């Protein structure tokens, strides 16, 4: 019997799926602090750990700040490290997020996208992680429990190759708590895909190397040039990981995913759980004779600029749906796309719509209406509230 073929289909929430991905990745250290709606990840990990199935060192410190402070040197010591958080927890980690990438750690973290306070809210909105876009973390946005499980495993491979920490983000409740049939790959498959983590440079008594000591201007500058060079390799690493994973499991992934874009004269660009809604809207529009398609941005950091330009070249109209609001500029993906398309011949007319900010529901029908309303309009520079 092919041991790889024993993938099982079970009903899992997005958070449980993440925990199973973590289990299969065989992490060594997991520092983690609870926060709604991430807590089921922590609980599932603790359950797997108490059953003896997960062997990792579990650390439950007093805050996310300490959780991330523990993650970084654990990773630098050569341990495979996972953590998970959401919203306030991610924001509290902010100082250490910069530290983690500057120190070239290879942590994988799941962030459950939730509105940041104030006021308090628990709703799907991607501002928490998008606001970390300059911290030097790889960011991948997942649409479904299956993608989250697969993504955790792929990201360990990418993070540990590039020595850049990586975040997999999935939306509160829509993905974190929604239950779907999920294929759990066999341990053999994962072991074949994910080699053990063995960094050459690490905290090790036999090596005697130190990390993070004060550097002069030139050396500090060099650390960022090195990080930049490593970041530049990430889109290819993500593509390669997605291809390899696809060969092993039948589920292929790429930095971007095109859905029904053949001959499309309007393309909706979005991330995360919104993609599921857009798929339905696109099907309905195609049915009604509207040539609509979707471009899903899975890899957001580093932004796959070349691939985005290629995908959108010659498309007459693109509409970005942003489930986030950056005060003073608008939707963040919209801003990013404007910069990507700068100076491009045959660039689409680009509309930025803020849809579903704060977790407000956006239905497929609503998306159909928005497309009808904006596809032939001249675009505005700024983003527009539409929900």
């Amino acid at each position, binding site marked *: 019997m092919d041991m790889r073929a024993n993938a099982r289909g079970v009903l899992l929430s997005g958070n449980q799926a993440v925990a199973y991905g973590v289990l299969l990745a065989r992490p060594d250290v997991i520092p983690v602090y*609870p926060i709604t709606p991430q*807590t089921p990840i922590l609980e599932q990990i*603790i359950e797997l750990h108490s059953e003896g199935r997960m062997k990792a060192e579990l650390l439950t410190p007093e805050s996310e700040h300490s959780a991330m402070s523990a993650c970084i040197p654990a990773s630098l010591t050569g341990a495979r490290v996972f953590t998970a958080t959401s919203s*306030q927890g991610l924001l*509290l980690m902010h100082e250490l997020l910069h530290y983690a990438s500057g120190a070239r750690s290879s942590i994988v973290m799941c962030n459950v996208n939730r509105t940041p306070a104030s006021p308090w809210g628990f709703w799907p909105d991607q501002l928490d992680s998008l606001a970390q876009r300059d911290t030097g973390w790889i960011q991948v946005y997942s649409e479904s429990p299956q993608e989250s499980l697969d993504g955790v495993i792929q990201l360990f491979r990418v993070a540990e190759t590039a020595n850049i920490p990586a975040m997999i983000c999935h939306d509160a409740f829509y993905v974190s708590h929604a239950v779907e049939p999920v294929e759990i790959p066999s341990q053999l498959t994962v072991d074949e895909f994910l080699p053990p983590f063995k960094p050459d440079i690490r905290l090790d008594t036999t090596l005697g190397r130190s990390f993070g000591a004060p550097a002069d201007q030139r050396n500090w500058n060099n650390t960022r040039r090195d990080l930049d060079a490593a970041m530049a390799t990430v889109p290819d690493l993500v593509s390669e990981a997605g291809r390899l994973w696809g060969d092993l499991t039948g589920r292929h992934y790429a930095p971007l995913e095109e859905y029904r874009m053949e001959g499309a004269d309007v393309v909706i660009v979005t991330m995360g759980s919104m993609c599921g809604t857009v798929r339905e809207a696109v099907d309905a529009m195609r049915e009604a004779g509207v040539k609509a398609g979707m471009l899903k941005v899975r890899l957001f950091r580093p932004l796959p600029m070349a691939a985005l330009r290629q995908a959108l070249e010659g498309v007459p109209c693109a509409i970005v749906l942003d489930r986030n609001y950056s005060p003073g500029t608008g939707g963040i993906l919209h801003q990013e796309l404007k910069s990507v398309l700068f100076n491009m011949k045959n660039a689409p007319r680009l509309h930025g719509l803020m849809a579903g900010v704060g977790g407000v529901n956006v239905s497929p029908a609503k998306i159909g209406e928005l497309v009808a309303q904006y596809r032939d309009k001249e675009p505005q520079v700024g983003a527009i509230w539409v929900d």
Partner: protein
Amino acid sequence: MELISYQDEGQFVSGHVACGGCAEALAMRVILNTVGSDAIGVVSPSCSAVICGGYPMSAVKIPMFHTTLESAAASASGVKRALVAQNKPDTTVLCFAGDGGTYDIGLQALSSAAERNEDILYICFDNEGYMNTGGQKSSSTPLDAVTGSTPAGKTTRKKNLIEILAAHRIPYIATASPSHINDMRAKIEKAKAIRGTKVIIVLIPCLPGWGVADNAAVRTARKAVEAGVFPLLEIEDGVNYRLSVSEKGDSIESYLKEQKRYRHLDADHIARLQAETDFEWRRLQQRVADSPARNP
């Protein structure tokens, strides 16, 4: 049985969303009515924040500022300084925080405020775990208690926050229990009249978190006090200790029996917890005896 003497001024109203039978709502009622209307509250994410109410409703009459989990004492310091700047130094600034927000993530801010002796009245509702997120351990969770993150029972002791606070030499520290309302009220009144940092830790048996029957919260709290597991005390200036209930019973078993979080314990474990309780009680007696106020 003592009579409860307590005047309800309507500072805490019905419609709040505490679990039916939760003693935290009872404690909040007593505290808010004792503090009165010249007060501003700061609350960090916890059951008390939920009980205070979600927008646009509020179960408390005083204005509340909902802050972040790690910041209650720092935010309260900010409110107090603003009031002082506006020449309103007599307004009480009250903090509501859970044990997670106090013993764990908020300890740094609390220590700093205590060291500066900020004029705040800090109430910690100690339900010995993170109940808002579904019942994980905090550093206030006692030895052997089962929580969502300690499925086999916690292997370390409850953090002795009282001694940590005493080491800051703040003017007033007390513990209180919803089973001893007059004592709680007297401590709030006393604290209110003191300038500087006051911290009162209120024991809250959590119905789902501890596995306590819906009608047993106050009884469980009483048993915790009477068994000496949660002594009712006051500490002035970090050195003068006084016990409000100066006797304790011989056995903690009846207290443990109220709670599912201790259901897994065998006789050996119970004996060990008993020994721990007896040891801590003797230590406390010694602190009382050694208090400078008793040895002028």
